[in-house]
């Protein structure tokens, strides 16, 4: 039977098992929207900005592991979604974005709302397609989903000119895909895996440095097995959180710029680093020349370009984390002998000493202003049993959430790591909520970041996505202010948000609920109240403004040289006793 391009689009999405798409219409995609409007199999969630649609697709993909889908129009619709594509590219998130394009006959003519979608998205997609003929549409969509979700996942763009959505063709959805230039390697070299097992058996101070690849690969179980069998401590990157249980005695927490003292010391003094699906980002390596000076490095990664990009690797293993770990565990089970706990005791004694020397800490005066870490830790404790999905924006609140929210399960953590995109948290949480209607989805937002996508509050209300957004309101671009404290003599150039909205009223203006928590004593009750509301809620929490996030490795510093607290000469008002500041009345320090 002959179908229009728009109908082929719909049928193809159904074949891919897509239940929800995030979308915003425009002239060249009206035919597709018209078809979507007349069916019930694929839900269309209307967003108020294309960046929102892109991030919702990202949130859905991170939470489910299946590609998230967005549909947007040509020209400005396309330019608006670029940020989400770039974010997904950096963090290896499988999304498929469909963009409308001017009719094929007009391409290249500076037609109304024309943009070079392929050129714009080329550097921030894993691949992109311009569909010039409706007869190619179904096969192209099949390839797009295949490329997005296999190998190292990533975003794919499919650009559909208006006439292609209206032309007719026979619909035939391919069963399989074969692309001669693309065949990811899943099985690691047996020989290398054997070498890795030997190195592990010999190591005295090994450390597992675990990244997002473990989550993408679904290798949490195998990782746990490996760690428990060998008693090797586990460091997680920001992107790996949830990939190994944060509460597990073998977990040292996050490593890197704002990682724990013990996690970074363990790397620095290790004699064997086992990197699993991690890409040696500069926020982790610090100064490369002083990175893990005593260690041999094993690196398991599905993408050969990740290996030896930044640091030297002794045993490279190209392959999928899960398959490689299964293989590695099998060898180790047969060869590891002696009581691993006894064997590792000297190393663990040292690690425990580091842990007690400098644990994560903050102080909360019961009469003082709410500390951001306290609020985050209470949200964590009060929702621990509910296995929530947690998203964040970008800034200090993101790092504190990473430090204090000890996630137990993979795919419960949505954060923007590589691009570090403010405004990510709320729409990403909505995307996850759309995929899991009955789960608790939390967003820990920054007051600065949240303002970059507040328009989606109304989308959440309409689509009934009961996300709970905690705004860690320090009236600052806090992370920027922290750098200004440390490296710019406390000159707060454009980091102070002296005029900011009343977030409770803002929520209400959009039809959502608003709650404000102002006193330490009210924190638990306020959180409970927000959780009990059936619908999207914004919880505004004015917090102590000048809290800084530690430990911190200054950019370009070495991993064992961490700042553990404010330098003694840093001037700032004390959080103690002072009433929490009211809007517009904050005092600001000048250096």
């Amino acid at each position, binding site marked *: 039977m002959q179908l229009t391009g728009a109908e082929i689009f719909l049928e193809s999405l159904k074949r891919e098992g897509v239940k929800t798409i995030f979308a915003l219409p425009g002239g060249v995609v009206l035919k597709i929207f018209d078809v979507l409007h007349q069916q019930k199999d694929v839900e269309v969630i209307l967003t108020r900005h294309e960046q929102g649609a892109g991030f919702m697709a990202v949130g859905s993909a991170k939470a489910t592991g299946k590609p998230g889908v967005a549909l947007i129009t040509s020209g400005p619709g396309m330019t608006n979604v670029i940020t989400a594509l770039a974010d997904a590219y950096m963090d290896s998130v499988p999304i498929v974005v469909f963009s409308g394009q001017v009719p094929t006959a007009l391409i290249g003519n500076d037609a109304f709302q024309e943009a070079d979608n392929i050129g714009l998205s*080329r550097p921030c997609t894993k691949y992109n397609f311009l569909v*010039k003929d409706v007869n190619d549409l179904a096969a192209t969509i099949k390839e797009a989903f295949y490329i997005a979700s296999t190998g190292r996942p990533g975003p794919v763009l499919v650009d559909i000119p208006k006439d292609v959505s209206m032309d007719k063709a026979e619909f035939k959805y391919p069963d399989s895909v074969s*692309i001669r230039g693309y065949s990811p390697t899943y099985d690691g070299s047996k020989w290398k895996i054997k070498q890795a097992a030997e190195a592990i058996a010999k190591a005295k101070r090994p450390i597992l440095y675990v990244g997002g690849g473990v989550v993408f690969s679904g290798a949490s179980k195998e990782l746990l097995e490996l760690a428990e069998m060998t008693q090797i401590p586990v460091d997680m990157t920001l992107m790996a959180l949830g990939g190994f249980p944060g509460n597990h005695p073998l977990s040292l927490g996050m490593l890197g710029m704002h990682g724990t003292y013990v996690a970074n010391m363990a790397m620095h003094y290790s004699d064997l680093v086992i990197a699993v699906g991690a890409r040696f980002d500069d926020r982790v390596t610090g100064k490369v020349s002083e990175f893990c000076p005593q260690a041999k490095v094993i690196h398991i990664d599905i993408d050969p370009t990740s290996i030896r990009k930044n640091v030297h690797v002794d045993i490279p293993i190209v392959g999928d984390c899960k398959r490689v770990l299964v293989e590695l565990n099998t060898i180790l089970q047969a060869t590891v002998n002696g009581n691993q706990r006894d064997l590792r005791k000297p190393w663990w004694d040292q690690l425990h000493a580091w842990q007690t020397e400098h644990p994560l800490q903050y102080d909360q005066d019961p009469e003082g202003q709410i500390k951001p870490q306290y609020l985050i830790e209470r949200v964590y404790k009060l929702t621990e049993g509910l296995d929530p999905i947690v998203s964040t924006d970008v800034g200090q609140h993101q790092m504190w959430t990473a430090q204090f929210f000890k996630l137990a399960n993979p795919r419960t953590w949505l954060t923007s790591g590589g691009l570090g995109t403010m405004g990510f948290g709320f729409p990403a949480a909505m995307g996850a909520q759309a995929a899991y209607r009955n789960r608790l989805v939390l967003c820990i937002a920054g007051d600065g970041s949240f303002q970059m996508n507040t328009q989606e509050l109304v989308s959440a209300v309409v689509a009934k996505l009961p996300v709970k957004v905690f705004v860690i309101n320090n009236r600052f671009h806090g992370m920027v202010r922290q750098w200004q404290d440390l490296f710019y003599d406390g000159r707060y150039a454009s980091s102070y948000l002296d005029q900011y909205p009343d977030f409770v009223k803002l929520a209400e203006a959009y039809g959502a609920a608003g709650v404000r928590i102002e006193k330490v004593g009210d924190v638990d009750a306020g959180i409970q109240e927000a959780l009990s509301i059936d619908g999207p809620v914004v919880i505004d929490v004015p917090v102590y403004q000048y809290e800084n996030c530690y430990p911190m490795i200054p950019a370009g510093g070495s991993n064992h040289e961490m700042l553990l607290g404010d330098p003694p000469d840093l001037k700032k008002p004390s959080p103690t006793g002072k009433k929490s500041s009211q809007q517009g009345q904050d005092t600001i320090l000048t250096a």
Partner: protein
Amino acid sequence: MEHIISLSIENKFGSLSRVAGLFSGRGFNIESLSVAPTLDPSISMMTIVTTGEERIIEQILKQLNKVIDVIKVVDISESEYVERETALIKVHTRPEDRAEALRIADIFRANVVDSSPTSYTIEVTGDVPKIQAIINLLQPLGIKELVRTGRVAMGREPTRTASAQSRPLAKVN
């Protein structure tokens, strides 16, 4: 160090810009790039001349391999290879210089492919030193225009080369 990379790539819309964009986006050097279709019209061969430390070259090769349109990548300068470049040189010729220009062309086995009362256009093919040498000799006469194709290269038998080994070409042969 200089490396010559030979790659086969899907001959379709946008694939050249994927490769060119990779080099500019990641700050890799590109000395020359030449591309043309093969016997199989769906595949193009590209020869890229680049320089960099070993670590960078390793990244370049891996990144090129990662481009989905790229079918095969070979660093042919790793083993024995032949390379050629063609240049078209339009040289200014006063009447008294015309014989000299022809003599130089002759020495380099170059051809005069066009001529006007005041110029010859000379076509020369060879490796880079040869082309550089003829340019140097013609320069005193006055070079009005110069175009070079960029280098193309091929591994010598029995070196495995992309064109000889890649599956799709084998189908054509």
